[in-house]
């Protein structure tokens, strides 16, 4: 059986369209990733002013000193959960 390149089949099965779409999406995704990591150091530098440097896991830490933080976080999580459930109820 000879090697036949049937280009009609390509068009019939949207081959070109798939290829172009695919390349576009791959480029779009990696361009976004590229943009994100380009901006990340600047964004972190700005945050630096607001928040402290990340905790070093090896440094000694007073376990309960920052207890307030977690309670706030938990409260925030609970509040989000609550809002979401309320919203879901209103929709039904």
């Amino acid at each position, binding site marked *: 059986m000879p090697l036949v390149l049937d280009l009609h089949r390509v068009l019939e099965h*949207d081959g070109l369209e*798939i290829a172009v779409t695919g390349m576009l999406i791959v480029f779009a995704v990696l361009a976004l990733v590229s943009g*994100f990591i380009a901006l990340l150091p600047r964004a972190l530098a700005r945050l630096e002013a607001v928040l402290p440097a990340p905790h070093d896991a090896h440094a000694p830490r007073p376990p309960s000193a920052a207890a307030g933080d977690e309670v706030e976080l938990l409260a925030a999580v609970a509040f989000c959960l609550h809002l979401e459930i309320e919203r879901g109820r209103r929709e039904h």
Partner: protein
Amino acid sequence: MLTDFLETTGFAQMTAGNAVMICIGLVFVGLAIVKDYEPLLLVPIGMGIVIGNIPSIAGMSSSVYSQGGIVVEDGRVQTETATVIDAEGREREVERVRWVPGSVLAYLYFGVTQGIFPPLIFLGIGAMTDFSTMLSNPRLVLLGAAAQVGIFLTLIGALALGFTPAEAGAIGIIGGADGPTAIFLSSKLAPHLIGAIAIAAYSYMALVPVIQPPIMRLLTTREERLIHMAPPREVSKRERIIFPIAAFLICTLIAPGAIVLLGMLFFGNLLKESGVTERLARTSRTALIDIVTILLGLTVGASTQAQTFLRRESLLIFGLGAVSFAVATAGGVLFAKFMNLFLREKINPLIGAAGVSAVPDSARVVQMIGQQEDPHNFLLMHAMAPNVSGVIGSAVAAGVLWSVLVH
């Protein structure tokens, strides 16, 4: 009895095709040992090919295709009555489904056909990959996108050669130069081609030092190959922690078909970079990835029984795979040259070739070609950026193909 037995031996049942395949398996093992080409995959695959081509006996097959399962006759599930011993040790009659057990290799091969092994390998790869170079030079990420052109042109070629769209997508992904991605996608789109696609992908990944250099030399001038690049900046721990999560969100919100592969890749990387889960990262990149690699390589190799493998399609797939690798390499190199039209700090276009992935072999090839022109030009680190972004790129491409081509 002895004559009866001798008729069941491999010698009696061996076909020429089996012998050919066993020789191919030996070539794989030989290349791995003598040339050090991707030995962690070629040795298991090669030995798998040998194992899979020893003819086994009807009724006690050791083939990966002897899956076992529920017995169906005349469109009806068959049942049987069996005597079992219950929790209190009393014999009891139970009705149950009639069921044929599978072979050991078929049970292990389940991890391939269901796409379970590739994400686990990605977990280990994530836990050993350092994305720092890429983070320090974001524009090189685009080279990993450009090299995926090999995937899509090969898809067109495969369609033109008469493969179905799903098959064509699975064949195209060979150009992604990423074994786990290729196996994952073909398990979803064209399970009957897993063996050929996986073998082609790993063969060409092993042959990267043979395939890429001529193309890279053809498409670049001496001046371009001599370009030196500035050393990458240091990347903070915070960036390295935030990156895997953010990149996962960006990639999979656009291409949800890549959730499992990229989820595992970036999860592994998070385990590595978080600084608090080192023991999980270590196990992922040692015991876990090793076990999965052994089982995947062996069973993929064993799936190439001559009867299913020595067909016209396999030859076409190998041909398309070679084209795919060449096109991907060219795509990366040419896109680097295209980017140079706009950039003040020029990129050495050789590193575009590393965008095909085949981590870390293609980056090593870039280093070698660069040093052949100028022994003081160290491109390896720069080539790692397109190299790892090429992994992400082909996983995204796989996600897109899956969602577009699955019926």
